[in-house]
């Protein structure tokens, strides 16, 4: 392992040495203006710094302008100012140039939240392919189901990202399964990022700054899932002394407090915090209804349900060289079945905690180090007479991650680091405790695993036109057997013209943890299971090529073609017992899959009317010897065409309209085509009829659901309170109330006239989850 690491490092150093001094010495002038992206005011005193070995720094004047004399070449320039989000841009300097830089104020309210440095030019110049990003501001403008803004659902409107079902936050990326996405919250894994069976994600918009989704060309620092990395970043607290806000919606309310405990200090130190929480309150109404019907013996009590979550982020800016922050998420869903004789309860939830240290050893060498803790578990508990029952599963993760960034070599940005992980899996734990010792039962598995990796990557500007990002990650995983894996990464950008670049990438990903999902939906009872001697790591290799075209700084057009090979995929046998099973490993089967397609998007990035159109044409297949008689089949998330149109328009300073329209062709589903009659054993459950009837499912993915389309609309109306800011957000999910089929059920017909009680066949019905759902949310900030 050490040898490979040394070889990689030496290769980078050699490449670097060959190119030092190979540049032209011609100089030209770089002029620029820095302004506030929201108010368009000039920003005086901003630091503009070239990220080169001998970096140059200059401050902007009262008109926000600066001027440099630099050698011809490609530069990374960093612009910083207190109260603004740090911005880094790349520029190809071949002649005297004037640039305009917009800095985003750090979060103060909806209008001044972050806009990442992801403008059109940066995207053209970057070698990164297959990345989508959504910031908080965009998410807040979008229509939301039941008024609950969900950044993951906005991400689903991007090309190549499919939802795993109507209204759910689960995603399938480039033909991968819902288990092939690594959700990170400030770098900590969130194993089940869903509330209410996936209808809401765990990410409260009050606490979220932005999200990046990598679907190809994965940076070497990321690994662990085959198809995507969803990197969610939380929002820092405001620099002001104290502010609070929140929202009141149809199903949940939110509360958010922020501030800076060192706001009076003049030495530049800051201690900011951002605390955000939310809770649903349907249970308040259900309790009242149950109470009012307590004397009605025929009344079935409505189960109690609620979820809550809380985010805390604390940042301590000690100096320019040392920054600390800690992030905590805790959330839980809770069901109680009041009418159940067993008094059953069902709870599930995540905890994700991390502590980060950012340190600058010098201008060119920086470190990001973090400790992480993640926990996901569910538990179903019941009580009956002298017996207490409990079924539970879960996974805990402890990890330490270190990432160094070195910019000391001209035209190179090196990243390298190492991670270690320890996991504790608690799988299918089933306990029955009785007051009589001989009646107590216990089954299930506890598995401890360790995992680690080292990575290195180099972002190398080979020439004005060519940029190469090479890297690799060496991983190990230990559980019964030790697996060593190497994951090479390569991305290449060729600048065809200043506004148009061609890009290509190759990446390999390995997955050592597998989700045992009983259905296509994201259920809390889905179990994470580690690789073992029998269950090998899942592997994917992906190539992706495309272009990025900045059309007059007004539109960004991106097109990518991809092909992904997947091996050692994990599924389960027909008839597998996934809930209570001492030997879950025996229920797995192994196979392979391919996915390929084309993704196109055009985004309007200028003017009042903003938005994008995305179109995906894709195929995804699977093949398992033990499933479908070994024949290739289309998995549930295979969809041929998908189209999204998203737009927002501020009609005035107080009124903003937004909408999105989604269309996709039907999912592949498995439907029965035949039926059989049967007898069963005398005196058993099916004994009411002479014959019982059973469906025949001949093969998987044999039917396509009907096409799906939906329009969502939102209006944000800003109020004029005496203090602070507030708005009313009106949303209409499925505005024209299209009855999209979520599922096709087959209801058995009665045949009472027949003496032999022969069932009369089946009636197919399309089950629709959501007709039009209007909602209103009141948001406020003081």
């Amino acid at each position, binding site marked *: 392992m050490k040898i490979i690491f040394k070889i990689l490092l030496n290769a980078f150093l050699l490449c670097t040495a060959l190119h030092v001094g190979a540049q032209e010495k011609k100089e030209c002038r770089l002029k620029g203006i820095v302004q506030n992206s929201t108010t368009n005011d000039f920003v005086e005193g901003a630091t503009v710094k070239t990220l080169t070995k001998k970096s140059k720094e200059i401050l902007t004047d009262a008109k926000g302008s600066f001027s440099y004399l630099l050698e011809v070449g490609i530069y990374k320039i960093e612009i910083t100012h207190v109260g603004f989000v740090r911005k880094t841009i790349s520029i190809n300097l071949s002649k005297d140039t004037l640039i305009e830089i917009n800095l985003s104020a750090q979060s103060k309210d909806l209008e001044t939240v972050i806009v990442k440095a992801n403008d059109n030019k940066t995207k053209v110049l970057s070698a990164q392919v297959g990345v989508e990003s959504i910031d908080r501001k965009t998410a807040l403008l979008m229509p939301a189901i039941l008024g609950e803004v969900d950044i993951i659902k906005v991400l689903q409107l991007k090309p190549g990202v499919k939802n795993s079902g109507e209204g759910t936050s689960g995603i399938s990326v480039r033909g991968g399964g819902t288990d092939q996405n690594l959700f990170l919250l400030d770098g900590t894994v969130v194993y089940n990022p869903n509330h209410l069976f996936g209808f809401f994600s765990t990410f409260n918009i009050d606490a979220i700054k932005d999200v990046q989704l990598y679907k190809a060309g994965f940076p070497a620092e990321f690994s662990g899932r085959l198809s995507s990395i969803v990197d969610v970043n939380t929002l820092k607290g405001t620099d002001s002394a104290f502010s609070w806000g929140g929202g009141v919606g149809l199903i949940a309310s939110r509360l958010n407090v922020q501030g800076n405990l060192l706001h009076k200090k003049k030495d530049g130190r800051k201690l900011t915090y951002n605390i955000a929480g939310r809770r649903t309150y349907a249970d308040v109404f259900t309790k009242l209804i149950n109470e009012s019907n307590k004397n009605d013996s025929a009344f079935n009590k409505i189960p109690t349900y609620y979820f809550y979550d809380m985010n805390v982020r604390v940042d301590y800016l000690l100096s320019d060289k040392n920054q600390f922050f800690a992030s905590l998420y805790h959330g839980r869903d809770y069901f109680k079945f009041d009418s159940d004789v067993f008094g059953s309860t069902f709870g599930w939830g995540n905890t994700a905690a991390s502590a980060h240290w950012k340190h600058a050893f010098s201008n060119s060498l920086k470190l990001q180090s973090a400790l992480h803790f993640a926990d996901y578990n569910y538990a179903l508990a019941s009580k009956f007479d002298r017996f207490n029952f409990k079924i539970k599963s879960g996974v805990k993760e402890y990890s330490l991650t270190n990432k160094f960034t070195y910019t000391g070599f001209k035209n190179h940005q090196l990243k390298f680091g190492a991670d270690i992980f320890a996991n504790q899996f608690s799988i299918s734990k089933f306990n029955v405790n009785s007051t009589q010792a*001989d009646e107590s039962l216990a089954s299930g598995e506890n598995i401890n695993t360790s995992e680690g990796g080292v990575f290195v990557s180099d972002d190398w500007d080979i020439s004005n036109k060519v940029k190469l990002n090479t890297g690799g990650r060496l991983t190990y995983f230990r559980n019964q057997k030790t697996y060593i894996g190497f994951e090479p990464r390569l991305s290449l950008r060729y600048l065809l013209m200043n506004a148009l670049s061609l890009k290509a990438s190759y990446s390999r990903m390995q997955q050592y943890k597998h989700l045992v999902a009983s259905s296509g939906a994201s259920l809390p009872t889905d179990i994470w299971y580690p690789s073992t001697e029998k269950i090998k790591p899942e592997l994917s290799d992906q190539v992706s090529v495309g272009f990025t075209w900045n059309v007059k700084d007004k539109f960004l057009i991106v097109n990518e073609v991809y092909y992904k090979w997947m091996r050692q995929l994990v599924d389960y046998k027909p008839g597998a017992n996934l809930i209570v099973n*001492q030997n879950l490993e025996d229920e797995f089967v192994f196979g392979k899959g391919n996915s390929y397609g084309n993704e196109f998007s055009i985004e309007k990035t200028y003017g009042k009317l903003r938005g994008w159109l995305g179109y995906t044409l894709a195929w995804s297949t699977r093949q398992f010897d033990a499933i479908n008689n070994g024949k290739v089949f289309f998995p549930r998330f295979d969809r041929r065409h998908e189209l999204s149109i998203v737009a927002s328009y501020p009609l005035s300073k107080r009124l903003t309209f937004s909408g999105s329209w989604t269309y996709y062709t039907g999912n592949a589903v498995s439907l029965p085509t035949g039926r059989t009659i*049967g007898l069963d054993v005398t005196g058993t459950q099916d004994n009411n009829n002479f014959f019982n009837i059973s469906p025949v499912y001949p093969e998987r993915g044999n039917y396509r659901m009907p096409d799906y389309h939906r329009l969502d609309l939102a209006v944000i109306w800003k109020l004029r309170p005496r203090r602070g800011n507030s708005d009313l957000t009106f949303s209409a999910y499925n505005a024209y109330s299209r009855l999209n089929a979520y599922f096709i059920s087959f209801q058995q017909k009665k045949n009472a006239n027949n003496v032999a009680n022969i069932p009369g066949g089946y009636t*197919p019905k399309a089950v629709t989850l959501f007709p039009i759902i209007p909602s209103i949310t009141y948001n406020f900030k003081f």
Partner: protein
Amino acid sequence: MNKKIFFYIYLLSIIACSKDYDIKLPDNKSELVVECYLENGQPMRALISESTNLLDTSTTPPIFLQALVIISHGNVNDTLRPFPFVDTLRKKVYNYGSTKNVIANYTNNQKYTIDVYDTKGRHAYGSTQFIDTVRGLSFTPIFNTEAKAYCLTKFSDNSPNADYYRLVLNKNTLYDSVDIDVLIDNSFANANNEFIYGSGYNFKTGDVINGRVFHLTHDYYLYLTTLQNARAALVNPFAVSGEVVSNMKGGLGVFAALSYTRKSAIVP
């Protein structure tokens, strides 16, 4: 009352609805279906049928097939004759049978095979065997304060291997009024390899608990499990996949030897 109305309006806005759906399913390939249970002291009987299109509206059971049905064990071949038989007491219909009674041996691992040939050239075949029955079966009624009792079933099995069972409790009759019909595996065994399962509070003084515990071969257990899953998958979007794992090759259905222990208890 107002609270109720508010809640129902609230619920209505998010509740699922369904409507009839005009569907064209992929073509169905008709297959031979065999269902045959061997039971100690009972004649060999089988229902031979074929699968039909799911949405067929015909209510005539597809059981009028000409077939050759042979059950073999050791060196003995028994041919089941066309023998339409309607058992109104047990609500069973068979179309092939023999007058020869099955003599079960639960310990010698003797294999029984079945071969079914029909006039369409189809051949379905499978095998099964009797296995050891469970020991120490007991039914214990336990009362609550409302004079209702649940039945605590206990039994044991000497086998150290993974084992599978079906527990059936009938109240007061031998075949009707099914109180429990459940599949059980080793997860329900305590440290002494004793299995424990409780019913609901469905019994009262004077009731008779008629119970049977079937010891299942793995293929029969898998058939029953996947059959349950298939039926659930018709109406449940979160159900697991609906393929039924049959122990018949070349066709569908099941061939199983019933190895069970029966016991009755009167609720005091």
